[in-house]
């Protein structure tokens, strides 16, 4: 269905090729997952399928890319719209119209599909993707998972044979991500569609994949094969596979079900061992320890109640992970704590004061918030300029922010424009700006969006270090594996109310949605990460 014959590609002003002599064939009806680190050329590979590379981006393409018998040399992306459907990372940015139904019809309008066929296909797409209740809704009023399903539906109506998706679940909560991936799997199985997708969080997609293409980056040749084969040696792997490798299971389990069947003996081995105790004892915050607190906090937007009577306290030296569906009130809680929002009722206290009473210059010494899109904090013309502004505003010694940045992530180019940095670098810069004045309470909203595994490891290290230095850290995240690795305490929000609050281990292990893979495999034992299991087996944790 898709053939790459000896394809090399170089961007117009790039020093070297991004793709180097790629030969690849993806047969019809496969779900193919492309993995690799940020900047390895994953997106370029995906975009070469429908000719966005090089027609849209410019550059030199050697070799031929053929889809369904048509080459991208003779066909521009718009000419291939009826063969390849392309869905980007941010569904909202791909919408052209205002309502769901119009968006579903938009591609067909461009293709000149007759009116009655259009009507039929829109209804089909609505049924296929479960959009019945949304057809009249404004696209902007939908949740992330719904938006992504509409974006998929909007390219499906053109009845393409191939679906290309660039990190379709990176912005979604676990449930919504499952929903989207389930939809994709169904399209492959029921309609015989060929699906090619890039994905950072392998734990989600590996069970569905027929084939994995590993893009190592730096001009090294691609590695492709079935998931069992690739996962045996891949540098990036979901926790499940790492656990399998640690224990030496063969063939490697790719789903929790497979792993549980094998894990009986492992569970028996681990049963006498106790998981590591929490780093700080949460649950009983002492007055001295308490950094911030909310009492009966209610925040409403018009008639919509975002937070409904939330009582929480944040302690020094503790990393608190906020979990919950999209729209459960996580972001509202963080922004209220940072003083950006007026509580409708109840109180918020940070460092003994109402955060709204701080002047901006005082505020940053008490609360720091890294927003979901760290780019919002950045407006300077270079990394250096950002650091200098930050030093000046917070009255710090020259170079403090730059120094913090160096500690978080060494080697961020100082003369680069903030918008041209990679996701990880931009997050590091925003983090450095927020951290340099050493706020007592650090808040992070979805910090791992778009981060690859190495950047995530680095972030976890930094957050643990900060907690060790006595900061209170709270982060909202959908990433259950991250939550398992970094959190001391976990709070689950639903409909603006706290429905679980306690040591991270207990909270996440007992939730089918928020449990990390290792916990699912080893339940009822409360193990969270492969590292813990490894150390326990190595005898580092005596019984």
């Amino acid at each position, binding site marked *: 269905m898709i053939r790459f014959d000896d394809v090399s590609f170089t961007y117009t002003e790039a020093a070297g090729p991004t793709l180097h002599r790629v030969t690849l064939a993806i047969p019809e009806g496969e779900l193919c997952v492309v993995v690799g680190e940020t900047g390895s050329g994953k997106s370029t590979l995906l975009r070469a399928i*429908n000719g*966005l590379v090089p*027609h*849209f981006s410019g550059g030199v393409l050697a070799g031929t890319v053929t889809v369904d018998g048509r080459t991208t040399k003779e066909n*521009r*992306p*718009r000419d291939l*719209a009826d063969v390849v459907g*392309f869905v*980007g990372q*941010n569904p*909202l*940015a*791909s*919408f*052209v*119209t*205002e*309502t769901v*139904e*119009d968006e579903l019809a*938009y*591609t067909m*309008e*461009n*293709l*000149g599909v*007759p*009116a*009655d066929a259009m*009507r*039929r296909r829109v*209804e089909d797409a*609505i049924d296929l993707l479960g959009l019945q*209740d949304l*057809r*009249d809704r*404004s*696209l*902007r*009023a939908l949740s992330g998972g719904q938006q992504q399903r509409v974006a998929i539906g909007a*390219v499906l109506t*053109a009845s393409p044979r191939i679906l290309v998706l660039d990190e379709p679940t990176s912005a979604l909560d676990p449930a919504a991500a499952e929903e989207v991936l389930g939809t994709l799997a169904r399209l492959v199985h029921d309609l015989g569609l060929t699906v090619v997708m890039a994905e950072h969080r392998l734990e989600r997609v590996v069970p569905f994949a027929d084939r994995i293409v590993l893009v190592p980056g730096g001009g090294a040749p691609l590695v492709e094969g079935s998931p069992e084969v690739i996962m045996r040696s891949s540098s990036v792997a979901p926790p499940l596979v790492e656990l399998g490798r640690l224990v030496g299971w063969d063939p490697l389990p790719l789903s929790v079900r497979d792993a549980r069947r094998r894990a009986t003996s492992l569970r028996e081995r681990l049963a006498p061992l106790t998981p590591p105790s929490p780093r700080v004892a949460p649950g009983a915050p002492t007055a001295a320890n308490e950094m911030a607190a909310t009492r009966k906090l209610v925040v409403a937007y018009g008639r919509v109640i975002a937070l409904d009577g939330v009582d929480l306290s944040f302690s020094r030296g503790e990393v608190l992970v906020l979990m919950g569906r999209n729209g459960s009130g996580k972001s509202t809680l963080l922004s209220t704590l940072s003083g*950006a929002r007026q509580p409708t009722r109840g109180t918020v206290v940070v460092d003994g004061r109402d955060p709204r009473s701080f002047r*901006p*210059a005082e*505020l940053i010494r008490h*609360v720091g*918030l890294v927003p979901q*899109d760290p*780019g*919002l*904090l950045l*407006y300077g013309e270079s990394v250096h300029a950002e650091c200098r*502004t*930050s030093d000046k*505003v*917070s009255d710090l010694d020259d170079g403090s922010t730059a120094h913090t940045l160096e500690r978080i992530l060494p080697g961020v180019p100082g003369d680069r424009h903030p*918008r041209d940095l990679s996701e990880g670098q931009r997050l590091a810069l925003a983090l450095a700006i*927020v951290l340099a004045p050493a706020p007592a309470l650090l808040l992070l909203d979805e910090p791992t969006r778009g981060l690859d595994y190495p950047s995530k490891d680095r972030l976890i290290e930094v957050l643990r270090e900060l907690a060790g230095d006595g900061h209170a850290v709270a982060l909202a995240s959908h990433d259950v594996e991250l939550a398992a690795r970094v959190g001391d305490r976990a709070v689950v929000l639903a409909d603006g109310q706290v429905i679980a609050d306690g040591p991270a281990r207990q909270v996440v292990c007992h939730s089918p949605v928020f449990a990390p893979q290792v916990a699912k495999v080893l339940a009822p034992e409360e193990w969270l990460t492969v590292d813990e299991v490894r150390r326990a087996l190595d005898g580092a944790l005596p019984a």
Partner: protein
Amino acid sequence: MTRAAAPRRRSLHPVAWWLWAAGLAICAMRTNNPFLLALIGAVACFVVSVCRTNAPWSRSIAFFLRVGVLVIAIRVVIEILFGQRGVPGHVLFNLPRVPLPSWAMAVSIGGAVTLESILNAAVEGLQIAVILLCFGAANSLASPYRLLRSLPAVLYETGVAVTVALAFTPELVLSISVVRQARRQRGIPVTGLRGLRGVAVPVLESALDRSLQLATSMDARGYGRRVSLGQGSRRLASGATTGGLLLVAVGLYGVIDSGSLFGLGLPILAVAAVMCGVGLAVGGRRSARSRYRPDPWRRPEWVVVGSGLVALGAMAVAHALNVPGLTVSFSPLAFPSIPLLPVVGILVAAVPAIAAPRAISPSTRGGIADPAAGPPTAQSSDAPQASSDLSGAPA
């Protein structure tokens, strides 16, 4: 805006509303009788109050009302200051005369202000205000999203750009407040010129990034696919447009210099407009697009447009019959008569209040539903939509 472009929830074709409003506006242009003008304004406001939805644009009538009042006020103030003097009448008060430099020649400031002149000015202001109100009514009643769908095919690119702009603006306004919060988080004040810069630049940067992502999606989704027009069609399109434009030049000359061309200016312009229209229509065939569920034009549309035409026709007949009271003057001071025929015509223009499908209440749908509306799937999908939320709060 949730219900903005929903074609299935039958609401009147936006072009029908605009034609109706134009009919009323032209009526208002043809008379300066304050009672007729007030009646036109009242009819427009009445229809809006009955037919409007909760959509954000339906509030624009209030804006137009305010502007109308402002226009009347300005017109009266200007009359008091600069009005023509020397016309006999009931002097209300005297303003001191201000001598003006010689370049102002005939202009004077101050002098005796008469009741007649103020009344005349107020009626002139009222006329403009009522015309504005008619267009305000159309703005309130017709959905801009659906108006865009009625753009001719040849303006497709422009239409897409405007659609994108309409969809993105509420998001942009939201992102301004988000950036302001983020700025506060950095400890940087958000007021003053420096604050403005810190807010404007990130908002613009992220908007520009968005445009590139959007372009990717549009390109991959077939935007800009074209069929090549045949040689003949291309020649026809370009010939008709060019010829039309040249005729426009001739016709304009005829209109501006009324002594020339034996009064053929207007007919020539009409022919020119038709030629340009043909050129545009033929040119529009170059895009291979089709339209998803175009807005239907059925009986209610005809009734609404017809009611506007009746008002206009009544006014025209009254003019032709020289019915007294269409053009009134307050010098000498006199109570204007009320001509019956235009009053009846204008009252007919209130018919849309009954005839237009009421988008708000689903119960009226039955009377208008057309069995030929579409494949049977339409019926099954009706139920959830009828009960869905109608408030059009911007996202």
